[in-house]
């Protein structure tokens, strides 16, 4: 059984800036993200002040994950096109990339695949802001990064336990931490003032029936997550495909050809997406 108090865990997550294991770039980003009234101009200036970050953001917005026609050549153009919330999410996504590589090999590929799949499903379902759903797909497992970073031994134990006991990593996390990556991710998203829908998608992507504000978006990320695992892209702590939530599946009513299209687009775009690093 676990001896980690979820309250302590939450406190740690909410004070992520003080954690010694968290790299500087994320701390600087955290200071920007938690400002209550940050403007698009400030975000744009923050990105532009860092050439490496600028390159990463531009690669990302020009990649298959977003699929904009034509080339976006400047950060200010990208921020205007995508809006504050999407840019905030992207900024976080590209900033945790290296951390994902270090903490869980394959998690970044899993997240990219999920971002692509989420966008395509969102477009098929006619959602107004497919980019926001895509960002939710990109960030849905961010809690895993924090758990694996702060508690490497315990997280490895959770992975081993999931394997040994034939349970999901989600359940194994619950045993180890009395909380899951979904909780941790949503605490972070809350701290960083992400929109309510995004917080809910992260919180509920394993239990989409609990989503109150954004049931459709949550169902999309739930199914996208499952399809990426089904195809075998990346690694999210276990190799097994989880059981689909029937409520989410029936809510989306994806046809066979819809699912085929998602797989096809993912296939075509994964390699180029991995090049974003």
């Amino acid at each position, binding site marked *: 059984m676990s001896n980690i108090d979820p309250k302590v865990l939450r406190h740690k997550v909410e004070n992520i800036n003080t954690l010694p294991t968290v790299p500087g770039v994320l701390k600087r980003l955290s200071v920007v993200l938690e400002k209550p009234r940050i403007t698009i101009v400030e975000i744009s200036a923050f990105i532009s002040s860092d050439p490496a970050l600028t390159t990463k953001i531009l690669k990302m917005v020009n990649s298959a994950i977003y699929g904009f026609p034509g080339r976006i050549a400047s950060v200010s153009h990208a921020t205007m096109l995508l809006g504050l919330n999407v840019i905030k999410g992207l900024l976080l996504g590209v900033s945790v990339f290296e951390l994902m590589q270090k903490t869980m090999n394959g998690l970044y590929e899993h997240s990219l695949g999920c971002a692509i799949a989420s966008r395509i499903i969102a477009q098929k379902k006619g959602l107004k802001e497919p980019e926001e759903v895509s960002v939710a797909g990109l960030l849905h497992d961010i809690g895993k990064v924090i758990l694996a970073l702060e508690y490497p031994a315990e997280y490895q134990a959770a992975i081993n336990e999931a394997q040994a006991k034939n349970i999901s990593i989600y359940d194994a996390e619950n045993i180890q931490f009395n909380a899951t990556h979904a909780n941790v991710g949503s605490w972070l998203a809350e701290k960083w003032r992400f929109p309510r829908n995004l917080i809910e998608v992260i919180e509920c992507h394993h239990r989409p029936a609990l989503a109150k504000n954004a049931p459709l978006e949550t169902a999309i990320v739930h199914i996208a997550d499952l399809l990426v695992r089904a195809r075998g892209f990346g690694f999210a702590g276990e190799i097994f*495909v*989880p*059981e689909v939530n029937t409520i989410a*599946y029936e809510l989306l009513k994806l046809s066979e050809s819809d699912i085929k299209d998602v797989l096809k687009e993912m296939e075509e775009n994964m390699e180029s997406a991995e090049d974003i690093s």
Partner: protein
Amino acid sequence: MPKIPVSKLEPGMKLAKPITAKNGMIMLGEGTELNATWIDRIADMDIVNVFVEGPPIQTISKEEALNGLNTRFSRVEGKPYMNAIKKIVKVHIEGLYE
């Protein structure tokens, strides 16, 4: 579109994605047919891999791919909708080897 190392480029291959300099400036556009000169120039740039047109190259055999699929779905055999999803993914994976 396969991503291949610069050393494996051959004249006649077409770029599936533009080659850009570090600052994002496009040096060679998408669809450019490579000749020996371009390949030399690309080799002189600080680039490791290049995207060329063509079907993706599979790194594992079809058998391995399908075995992997079976393993991944082994916990959810017979659960609602899961067999249908697996079938679609199976057809998709088989299609990659045709």
